[in-house]
């Protein structure tokens, strides 16, 4: 291509004005101003990263290295789709047992917004949890956990429980989008995509951001692929979903009769053609395509090895429970998560569907909790004994919590609960969080927060901090604006950090 024409193509309007202004400013020595108009993302490239030219080393991130020494090297994020009831799992409210079927006082509700599913109800009867709670020893003054999660309770000395989580969204889609991308409207990159962009992967044979979904037994909501999308970041940062069937990644296997050498030759030819196209159009997505083809070629070897449990010993498999041999269960996914953490995958996202218990909650939550409890405890134990937990940050969260009042008919054995964004419980473990503590307090009705509210942006900022990142400096400039996972909000919560 004619070099002048190439230069012309590479100059966008913004870049032209930015660069001209920058040159003029440099000429007059106004260095501060020129850095303001410098369109490059702010990052101090380390020496090693200088090798990272446009093609880069596979899996290298844009920052080259974390801003400061990280406590965690990777994240396992378990998202409970549908929003489990904090009142029936973690937030112990014994005094509500004497308020059965009383009306929720307006001084508590304070006219706060309800969903369309209960705003028409004539009464808001208080539904205390019918599940028995037990207090377990942790590193502070103990933590109450319901009888639904006995196995998880046995590792309560590792849990950093946040009772005072709050969110802005009241429906599933914006709620999950907010937790995943830091914004309720779709279109921003997911947390995992930010990790892939900023830090890259420590295993070049596997995608940096892997997503697994376990189906639930209760009321399930849709999970759109945009929850693990890369937004405006290059498409190679999007999450890769591992499917539960016999073929974890679709179209990865070569057809019968095609040798690996032949595949290699084919990819080489395709890459040449793609490079030619790139020379013509300079579209960065073509580069992303080339790198993804190479990744897929490596995954042809790494994924079958990853999903093959034959070298796991029987005791380990038993620890995760009887479902572990069924692909797509929470047990199998938790074991896979451990294997992924072991192989250096940066961001492992697990979804469990089916926590949206608007009615018939006691029955449905039993099934959901049973499928979750043993594998979750096993995951923490297994990571811990292998020396992985101290460098792996686990987050267990949901898009919001559930109401203290019953949706629909309240009886002594049955009730439902509506969405409740004002307060709910999430917990973290490992990866530099303070183990065995509880943080924040809700009011007597578990409706509002009394102490230490934590917003989604605060949680993100704290998690980024544990990954060695300053959330205000993980930036991508898009359409002339700097974007962050925490947008323009978020404060690190030091009390959660060990």
């Amino acid at each position: 291509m004619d070099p002048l024409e190439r230069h012309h193509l590479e100059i966008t309007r913004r870049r032209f004005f930015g660069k001209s202004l920058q040159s003029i400013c440099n000429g007059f020595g106004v260095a501060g101003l020129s850095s303001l108009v410098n369109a490059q993302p702010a990052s101090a490239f380390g020496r090693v990263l200088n090798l990272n030219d446009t093609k880069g080393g596979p899996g290298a991130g844009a920052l080259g290295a974390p801003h400061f020494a990280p406590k965690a090297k990777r994240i396992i994020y378990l998202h409970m789709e549908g929003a489990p009831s904090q009142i029936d799992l973690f937030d112990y409210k014994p005094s509500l047992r004497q308020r059965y079927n009383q009306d929720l006082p307006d001084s508590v509700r304070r006219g706060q917004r309800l969903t369309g599913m209960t705003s028409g109800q004539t009464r808001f009867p208080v539904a205390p949890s019918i599940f028995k709670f037990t207090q377990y020893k942790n590193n502070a003054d103990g933590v109450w956990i319901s009888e639904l999660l006995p196995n998880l309770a046995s590792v309560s000395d590792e849990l950093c429980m946040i009772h005072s989580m709050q969110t802005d969204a009241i429906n599933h889609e914006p709620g999950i989008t907010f937790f995943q991308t830091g914004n309720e409207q779709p279109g921003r990159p997911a947390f995992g995509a930010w990790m892939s962009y900023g830090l890259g992967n420590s295993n070049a044979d596997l995608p940096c951001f892997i997503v697994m979904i376990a189906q639930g037994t209760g009321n399930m909501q849709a999970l759109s692929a945009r929850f693990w999308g890369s937004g405006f970041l290059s498409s190679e940062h999007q999450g890769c979903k591992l499917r539960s069937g016999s073929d974890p990644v679709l179209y990865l296997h070569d057809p019968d009769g095609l040798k690996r050498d032949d595949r290699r030759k084919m990819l080489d030819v395709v890459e040449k053609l793609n490079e030619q196209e790139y020379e013509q159009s300079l579209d960065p997505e073509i580069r992303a395509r080339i790198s993804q083809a190479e990744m897929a070629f490596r995954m042809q070897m790494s994924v079958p090895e990853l999903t093959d449990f034959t070298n796991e010993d029987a005791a380990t498999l038993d620890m995760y429970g009887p479902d572990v041999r069924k692909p797509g269960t929470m047990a199998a996914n938790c074991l896979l998560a451990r294997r992924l953490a072991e192989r250096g995958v940066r961001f492992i996202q697990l979804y469990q569907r089916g926590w949206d218990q608007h009615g018939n909650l006691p029955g449905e939550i039993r099934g959901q909790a049973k499928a979750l409890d043993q594998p979750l405890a096993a995951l923490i134990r297994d990571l811990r004994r292998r020396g992985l937990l101290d460098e792996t940050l686990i987050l267990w969260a949901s898009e919001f919590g559930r109401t203290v009042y019953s949706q629909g008919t309240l009886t002594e054995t049955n009730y439902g609960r509506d969405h409740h964004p004002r307060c709910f419980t999430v917990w973290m473990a490992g990866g530099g969080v303070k183990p065995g503590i509880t943080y924040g307090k809700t009011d007597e009705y578990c409706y509002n927060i009394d102490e230490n509210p934590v917003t989604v942006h605060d949680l993100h900022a704290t998690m980024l901090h544990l990954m060695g990142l300053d959330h205000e400096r993980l930036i991508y400039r898009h359409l002339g604006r700097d974007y962050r996972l925490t947008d323009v909000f978020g404060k690190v919560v030091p009390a959660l950090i060990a």
Partner: protein
Amino acid sequence: MIVNISMLADSAGGPFSLFTLFGRLHPLVLHVPIGAVLALAVVELLTWFAGFEESRRPHGMLAWLAAVSAWISVSTGLVMHANGTYDPDDALPHRNLAIACSIMITLAAFANCRSNYGKRAGMLWIYRILLFAGIAAMIPAGHLGATMTHGEGYLMGFSPGAASKPESNSSASVESAPADAADGAFSTIILPILRAKCLTCHGEDQRKGKLSLESVESIRAGGKSGPAIDREKPADSLILERIHRDLEEKGHMPPRSKTQLLESEIASIDAWVKTGAAPNAGSLQLNGGADSKPAAPDTTESHPARARVDDGAFRALRDALVHVQPVKQGSELLWMDFAAPAARLGENEILQLLKPVAGDVGDLALNRSKITDEGMASIAAFPRLRRLELRSTAVGDAGIDKLKNHPSLEELILTQTKTTDASVDSILTIPKLAKVYVWGSGLTPEGLARLRAGKSGLQVDAGDAPAAAVVKVEDPIKLSGDAPLPGAQTANAAPANLKPINSVCPVTGKPLNPAYQIVFEGKVIGFCCPNCPSKFWENPAEFKAKIPQ
């Protein structure tokens, strides 16, 4: 067309000589506006007080001369600043004051024109105020400029009040310094670091804070805050305290806006100061502290080592799909993970890849790789290794034996290795070891007990952590609705069944909607829409007056 403009603009940023020359004219041309402004002030005062009212003609000429030459000075100054390194503490206020002064003088020139030879009194006063304000800005600007060229204390150093002792003291050291430093660790290792990162401000020319770091003598003499090196307790020296101070904290050196010292450079200065800051200790072992093992390669080499590790070594690691990344930005310490190629690389290939970066490996993960006891000899020689992961490898007691007394190792992962009780003693010799993971290894309960008892502060995880103990179990659940309502609520009745006491919404004044009612201080209050109750609760006092009592 577009291309040409941007290329031109690009080249303007380059260091071509005419441009530099223009900048260098700054110290010359700046005297023109100073002279013109001062002359203008004198002429103005004369006209004002001595009554030369009729001749206001020179004012205009002088004012315009001052304004135009001021802007030329500003532009030369900006170019000069771009091409040189000046202390921003001086340069930035100097720049801002000079620009402010130029603006005021220019406006004064305009005002003078508009005053029609002093006939319009209002304009004349504006002109006078601007002129003297400009002078007020010019004096500190000039002072800062002089500080940058002549150094601090040039003017006031010989004023009657100033102590002249440190001046004469250090000027004596200037002569003795070069001879002292000849061929020693100072001139070969320390001085180049200082020259690159410190001397711009703390050289003989600048002496910020009265401190010069150009010679051993002047470092010992120190500056305003006292001697930079404590001869009794070198480890407590001020120079070390300042370079180790948190970057965010005031007084950290070099200042935050400047190029920071590398870890290896800090280590070198550390070692040099702690071993007595000798000027000519050619045989000095700079190994990060007097008490560390002599076998460890000295950190004198760690700075030049950066040049020795060529990019080819990193390229080879990347090509082999080994993860290699600095542990944090600005650090030379590396985190390396062989997770991707673990099954493909033979032991020799692994060691070959690691060899060129051996001095920089901090965290090393060799899980599931083909590393064996033989290879451990090389790994054990990595001087800065902090965390070593050997999970699911064939490494056994012979390999662990090689890690004996490792100077920096803090975390060791031996899960599912062939390690047995024979390794316990070797593990216990590692001085800084804080965590060791032995689940799935060949350790017997006796060996484990010995390991746990062997070293206080050593955290041993064998996968046998007990389940969290139960503190208390809740009593059998009894549901009832007999608890009294909180706060001022008295009635147990559902408020929706009651009639509101107000007839219009207290927030908006619109008619009520029966769906939106609250109980406030025992009264039912109605609202027009779902948004009003929350507004009401935000500040009940504000709306209380609008409710019928």
